[in-house]
């Protein structure tokens, strides 16, 4: 899953990421459900089915956790339910992920978003109402496709809070 990834701009990064990624995947005993890659400041995200957490043996779980701790390239997102939350529609209207047709999306899954930054917009009667975050977050999953009609307060994205100190550390490691 290489959403919004542009190799012509980041070909050097891409190659580095691709190698790290294949190494990482090889080393993991349980293959993830989803892998998200971001080229900008380089982020790799792996996701497993919640069901697999339940069915796998304790040994495997330990193995996965240890692998991940040893692996400096990846950022695992086995987020707990508590840290995840929804960004909700500020109004009833049509949800857009980009500022204009053909423009790049405000955010893609995996992006880290700063407080006050726009992540989407809802159009109601030609009035554009920005969807913003008040906290530093990571976009985990976008629930509504571009151009979908939404009600007030309807969940648009699953996000998780990102600790400032934690990400600074990650960036250094990368």
């Amino acid at each position, binding site marked *: 899953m290489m959403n919004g990834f542009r190799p012509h701009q980041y070909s050097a990064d891409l190659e580095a990421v691709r190698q790290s990624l294949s190494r990482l995947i090889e080393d993991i005993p349980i293959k993830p459900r989803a892998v998200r890659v971001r080229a900008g400041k380089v982020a790799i995200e792996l996701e497993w089915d919640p069901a697999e957490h339940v069915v796998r043996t304790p040994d495997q779980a330990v193995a996965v956790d240890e692998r991940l701790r040893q692996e400096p390239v990846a950022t695992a997102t086995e987020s707990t339910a508590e840290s995840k939350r929804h960004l909700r529609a500020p*109004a*009833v*209207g*049509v949800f857009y992920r980009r500022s204009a047709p053909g423009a790049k999306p405000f955010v893609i899954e995996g992006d880290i978003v700063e407080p006050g930054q726009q992540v989407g917009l809802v159009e*109601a*009667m030609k*009035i554009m109402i920005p969807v913003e975050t008040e906290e530093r977050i990571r976009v985990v999953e976008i629930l509504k496709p571009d151009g979908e*009609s939404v*009600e*007030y*307060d*309807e969940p648009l994205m699953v996000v998780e809070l990102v600790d400032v100190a934690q990400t600074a550390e990650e960036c250094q490691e990368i």
Partner: protein
Amino acid sequence: MFRKILIANRGEIAVRVIRACRELGVRTVVVYSTEDRDSAAVRMADESVHIGPAAAKRSYLNVPAIMEAAFRTGADAVHPGYGFLSEDADFAEVCHANGIVFIGPPPEVLEGLGDKAAARALMAQAGLLVLPGSQEPVDTAREAELLVDGIGLPVIIKAVAGGGGRGMRIVRERADLIDAFRQIRATAQMLFGDNRVYLERYLEHARHVEVQVLCDSHGNAVHLGERDCTVQRRHQKLIEEAPAPGLPASVSVTMCQAAVRGALAVGYVGAGTFEFLVDRDGRFYFMEVNGRIQVEHPVTEMVTGIDLVAEQLHIASGRPITVRQQNVRPTGTAIECRINAENPNRDFVPTPGRLTEFIPAGGPFVRVDTFVSAGARVSPSYDSLIAKLIVWAPDRERAIARMVRALDEFHVSGPNIHTTINFLREVLQCREFRESSHDTGLVDQLFVERRQLTSG
């Protein structure tokens, strides 16, 4: 007839409109605020759209949100109920511009009648008697003083954009005039965003009588008789009845004809109410037109057998009115009591909260229009009306007895909850009301008597 109607309102009136639609085979969409997500209207409607948070400004007054809800559900008409956007000319215009029928008068009619000073002038032109007062909004204290020199005291200062009993004040002493004038301008600015006010002579000992009219888009107009809404607190109605007790038939007839004449003069379309003040000599003066369905419409329905909301839908869908004036024959007496979650002993302050008990009245000729049940929460964000209790009987005496009986059956309680039930019973049983010798001062008078009783 419409296929699908969006109801841009809440509470009992949203439920009332859904019921009419159901009977006509029209699908319904209600819009709701977060506060109303578990409401009766949301449960009863075919579809619902969450349009905003509790604050009315961001939900029930939020035009873009309501229009979006209409688009996404494919509604072909909007019923605005009463209050909120029901008399908002701009909203009516936005509906038309987007190909959605606004169930109410045309925007230009709402615009004309929404300016209370202009409405007075329009009706005076149509030959209706208006109380002596300003022709135009009064902009300076000096102008107000000159006017009072001409028309005498007492006067009532009213906001041009006012409504729902808000933005008005009575002045009895000349010394109070300037203060009252400034204060009501400031209040009007705050409430309506329009500080213009007008003055008219205030009638003491008057009765508030209004005429229900129906006008279609083919130039037909009928009246459905009058309602008496004299029992008010702070200019807000508590008890309404039809017909007006003690009003001579000749006065009733000329008043109803005047209302029809006024409606035709302004090109009115839809259901509307012409409000008058009637003095002790039976002279009636035009006050204002309410361009919407009113809270008290059931009393007219009960005496005429005409479903006013269904008529609104027929008219809005372009059909001619089917009812002929000669077939409108009000029968018996209907009375409505407004059961509000408020404390009559503390100047009718609203008492929102959870209802642990809600047992409505029943039995023959009793109608309860409500949207709450035990366990429901009365929201502090909206008005305090929780139920309308309406009874019918062949005559007024029996209607009062039936209403007292029904109030006895009605039980509402909850932590912090007070209601108007006991106070309403007190009014119905007082001598002035029974003899129909009361006037708009009745509620204040009852409180004065109470204080005298407790201090004596």
